[in-house]
């Protein structure tokens, strides 16, 4: 079933050390147990898909990974060493970048100003630090071309880009600033067919540079198109991790839905979900 994919997949080697490894992560919010022991790891150059229905705990889990939440219990190893993130800045410094679906770009600002937002290059003139706009513009144009986006100019406002292109700019930005792990939170859920394939192609390009990609989705077909491994969350627990080729879309779909009812629905829907 994987033969239809146009992407080149690496063989996930079990002996490669994961960039990040999270073991038995639990997260409780008061009396609510959002995560009840989730284990997950990302290796360099792979796309690890995190699947699950709404409320399965995907968001809580990636927020734990990116330092927004601190786990109630469980261990995090980053490049083999135990690590604790106090806040998102720690995670960003370590090289974990999160690309949010909507909250990534500022439409009124130019692509180049967006690209360097928070990391502006500066140069000193007469002892005063000024924005190095020339460098910012050149780098932006160069990185955008690498990602296959042709800008009219670095001053073009992000508002004129399509949703898929905005995601791509955000991804290019994270990669440029040295991300080792890229967390993509439902990057394709609001996009059309063509834009989705652009974003998936971007993920493929990023993966080839040795960056570990965490791809969160509830769309099995998007996940299967680029994923190397698939972890399904259901009600705060991992239902297991499958390697590409070991699992069929139907099985993944069943796992996400918790199995039972969808199997019956499937018949009447004719496999369209």
């Amino acid at each position, binding site marked *: 079933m994987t033969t239809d994919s146009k992407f080149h997949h690496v063989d996930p080697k079990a002996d490669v050390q994961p960039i990040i490894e999270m073991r038995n992560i639990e997260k409780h919010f008061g009396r609510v147990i959002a995560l009840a022991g989730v284990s997950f790891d990302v290796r360099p150059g792979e796309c690890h898909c995190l699947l699950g229905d709404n409320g399965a705990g995907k968001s809580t889990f990636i927020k734990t990974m990116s330092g927004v939440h601190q786990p109630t219990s469980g261990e995090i190893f980053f490049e083999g060493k135990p690590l604790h993130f106090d806040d998102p*800045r720690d995670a960003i410094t370590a090289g974990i970048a999160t690309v949010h679906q909507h909250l990534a*770009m500022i439409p*009124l600002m130019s692509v180049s100003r967006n690209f360097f*937002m928070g990391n*502006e290059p500066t140069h000193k003139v007469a002892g005063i*630090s000024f924005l190095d706009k020339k460098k910012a513009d050149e780098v932006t144009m160069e990185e955008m*071309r690498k990602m296959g986006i042709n800008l009219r100019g670095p001053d073009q406002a992000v508002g004129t880009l399509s949703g898929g292109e905005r995601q791509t700019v955000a991804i290019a930005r994270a990669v440029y600033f040295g991300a080792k792990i890229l967390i993509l939170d439902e990057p394709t859920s609001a996009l059309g067919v063509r834009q989705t394939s652009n974003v998936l192609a971007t993920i493929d390009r990023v993966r080839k540079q040795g960056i570990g990609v965490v791809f969160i989705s509830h769309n099995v077909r998007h996940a299967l198109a680029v994923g190397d491994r698939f972890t399904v969350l259901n009600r705060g627990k991992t239902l297991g991790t499958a390697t590409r080729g070991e699992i069929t879309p139907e099985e993944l779909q069943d796992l996400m839905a918790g199995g039972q009812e969808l199997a019956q629905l499937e018949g009447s829907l004719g496999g369209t979900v």
Partner: protein
Amino acid sequence: MANAAQPTAKSDERVKEISAFRNALIRPELGGIVGTVAVFTFFLLFAFDSGMFSSQGFMNWSVVSAQFMIIAVGACLLMIAGEFDLSVGSMIGFAGMMIAIFSVTYGWPVWIAIMATFVLCTAIGAFNGWIVVRTGLPSFIVTLAFLFILRGFTIFLPQVIERKTIIGGIIDVSEGDWLAPVFGGKILGGLFTWLGEAGIISTFERGTKAGQPVVDGIPMLIVWAIVLIIFGHVLLTKTKFGNWIFAAGGDAEAARNSGVPVNRVKILMFMFTAFCATVFAVCQVMEFGSAGADRGLLKEFEAIIAVVIGGALLTGGYGSVLGAALGALIFGVVQQGLFFAGVESSLFRVFLGVILLGAVILNTYIRRIITGER
């Protein structure tokens, strides 16, 4: 450069080429430039021989415009950072009154009074900003509260201390002070004397000042306006911090996700707005020699109007200090120009309302062009 290196880059056939006209349209200063040209054309045609463009008339509307510019620079940067300050007018009255109380009533040296007022007022600005970022309330409401609080104190304090609402005598106490001329003095006096002697500008023909030029220097108020405009423009467009101002106003959440210290930026902009209001107040107090409880009334709206005419969006994230300065210039020229042209001054308000509406509609249209919305 990079673009030329890839001639084969195909352009998207569905993105229309943008004409130079539309490209110019998305410059935030455009409205200000068009307005300035229109206003000057109008008055050159209808009020040329009214004395408006003599050296004295020139100085008259320049000073008024400079006043607007000083508060517009602060309001502009704050608006781009996504917030308003409605307490600017009250802050002007309050700052002026504090200088008078410190220097005249308490007898402090004027330079200490001025510095203490700057510290006090920027601290109030910081407090304003702190409340806004901590509570997440709209700055409209928070600063509206300060509009009343500060105005109330400005009327209350002099009544309690001096039993009057205007405190004078500042010119006497500031005699020989080193800091007072930085706000109330004039520069280039020698140049203007020379210009007068050379017959380039007119001189007094009779009286005690006979032979002296009618304009004896450039008031420090204008110098402050120019310095603040240059500072604001460079800060906004040429520095890292300027990028943060745009980001904080464009989308605070996205800016935070990218590591921009949004709260700090906003609080600093509230402080800068208060600083500009205090500069205005000190210049005014030094010029008039007195502080009045009603000074600065409605200035907050005039500042906002100048900024909006200058192309800034009320919703933040977009605008230009140069545009705001042009907005202030239009404001000053029209206000004084109508007087020179002999037009009933109440019509100025009509004009203001009309130009404000026009500017907002134009800005909304421009934003649609930038963001590609329909």
